[in-house]
């Protein structure tokens, strides 16, 4: 047990348990979506693509998916400028009350989602905008904003301040320095952050559930409502859309900035 061999066996046993636990639902949903039967049974009754054909016909699912996309786009478009500016400011400037500001900007993570969701529901309700989709986008942006700020501060901290001074020294005015030196340096962080924001908004369930009504359900809420009534393979097929989006996001992230960026120490 105390030998190097023991260490390998111990670590790998736990790692394999984790990998299986992490991947099982994804694999099973993928498998179930190709079943030929009308029920999800084991062993599956043959392979077919009929459930994909059936979700392609279902307007309610397609519309719910488009609504989720719309929410994600709103969320990301707001998060990019807001999070980038805040991230650069926190990483590069000595601001007063820095500690307090940091804790304040972490509020979206420290306030429980149900609290944030209900608070936003009350505010949007008072403002008379409940029942529209863009407030859902704003809500998703608020609750995940620290991810964006994190991603940007991580790359802004690695930018050598001398580079900006050098640009200024060569005669670049402040805006030019910002656009030509600072922004390109934080671009990997902005890409990481906006991908996270987009995909998390696409999947956001609880806040969506609180802010939408029956006319404008987003896809996760639609799936949740259907799970409660009956489990059919078309749900598996539509879930594969999420799996596809997640895989795509991971590929883009890996190609553009590399997944290893999450392992870097601060």
């Amino acid at each position, binding site marked *: *047990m*105390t*030998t190097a061999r*023991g260490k390998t066996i*111990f*670590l790998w046993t*736990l*790692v394999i*348990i*984790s*990998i299986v636990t*992490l991947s*099982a*639902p*994804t694999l099973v949903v993928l498998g*179930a979506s190709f079943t030929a039967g009308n029920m999800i*049974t*084991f062993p599956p009754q043959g392979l077919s693509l009929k459930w994909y054909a059936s979700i392609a016909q279902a307007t309610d699912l397609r519309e719910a998916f488009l609504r989720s996309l719309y929410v994600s786009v709103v969320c990301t478009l707001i998060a990019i*400028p*807001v999070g980038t500016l*805040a991230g*650069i*400011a*926190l*990483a*590069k400037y000595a*601001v007063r009350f820095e500690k307090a500001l*940091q804790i*304040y*900007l972490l*509020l*979206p*993570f*420290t*306030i*429980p989602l149900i*609290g944030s969701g*209900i*608070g936003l529901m*009350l505010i949007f309700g*008072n403002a008379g905008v409940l029942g529209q989709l863009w407030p859902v986008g704003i809500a998703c942006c608020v609750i995940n*904003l620290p991810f964006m700020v994190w991603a940007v*501060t991580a790359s802004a901290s690695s930018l050598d301040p001398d580079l900006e001074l050098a640009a200024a020294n060569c005669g670049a005015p*402040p*805006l030019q320095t910002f656009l030509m030196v600072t922004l390109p340096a934080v671009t990997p962080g902005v890409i990481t952050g906006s991908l996270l924001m987009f995909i*998390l908004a696409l*999947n*956001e*369930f609880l806040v969506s559930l609180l802010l939408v009504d029956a006319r404008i359900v987003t896809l996760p809420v639609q799936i949740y409502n259907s*799970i409660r009534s009956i*489990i059919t393979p078309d749900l*598996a097929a539509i*879930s594969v859309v999420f*799996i596809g*989006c997640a895989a795509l996001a*991971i590929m883009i992230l890996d190609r553009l900035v590399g997944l*290893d960026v*999450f*392992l870097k*120490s601060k």
Partner: protein
Amino acid sequence: MRAYPLTWRLLDVLEAGVAKVFPRRLAGATPYLMLAPAVLLVGLLVLGLFQIADGSLRTLDTTTFLMSESYSLDNFRRALTEPLFRNVALKSFTGSLIVTAITLMLALPYAYVMVRTKSAALRKILLIALFLPFFIGQVVRAYGWLIILGNQGLVNETLSFLGIGPFRLIYNYPAVLFGLIQYMLPFAVLMLAPALTAIPEETEAAAESLGANWIQTFIHVVLPMARPGFVGAGLVVMTLSLTDFAIPAILGGGSQDFIANAIYDQFFRTSDQGLGATLALLLVAAGSTLVALVFALVGTGTLGMGRAKQ
């Protein structure tokens, strides 16, 4: 004369515009202006908390089904004394403690192997196995577990093939905890990994060359040095699992409510907004106390997002 490129002209105009709107002598205000949009956006949450606090002081008039005009503390009395809420709170707290302990236990080896492995391919596989569920969302994952653990699910069908079962594997407390652990694992690993990266491999080698076996090295070197990661990971897992809605709702089947489910029910089933707001406020208070306590005792750990320490 060489042509002056259009982009340069454009930049000059922009620069002049900025200089006019925002003269140099205000440069000290730059970081605050850059932070303002984020502060305003998060301000929506603070505003929301005030709304919740206001609602918590109004009681439901059961004859008219309207909220009272006057303030009272009656909701707080009910929230703190009624056994229903005490049971839900106890169940959620116990659950989140168990989930945190098990998740950290699984996350540490995962993060350690991922950080320490020499193989880039293995590291990528581990990262993908982590990000895929993280990016898929709770509802789809819980749906996957229903297919696996359901009464006619994968596990029970396999067991019946062997002549055992069926067992009731969903709609109970362990199923909810299991779902939460799976949901939290990526968060925990991602918070732990940077802290483990920060530990130089030589430190471990040094401990081992001094005669410590790997278990001693782990306990006396790796764990203490990874403390900021444990703070971040533990806090995130604890608060997120304590306040989760989807997993208890789907895998608990309505019989295993956590606090968030109780709050949702007050708003949308019983329509007692006041009591719902009170419960939400108490949950926010409990969560914040926990976070503040940990921040005060051990700092923000890997959760901080300020300037790199010089």
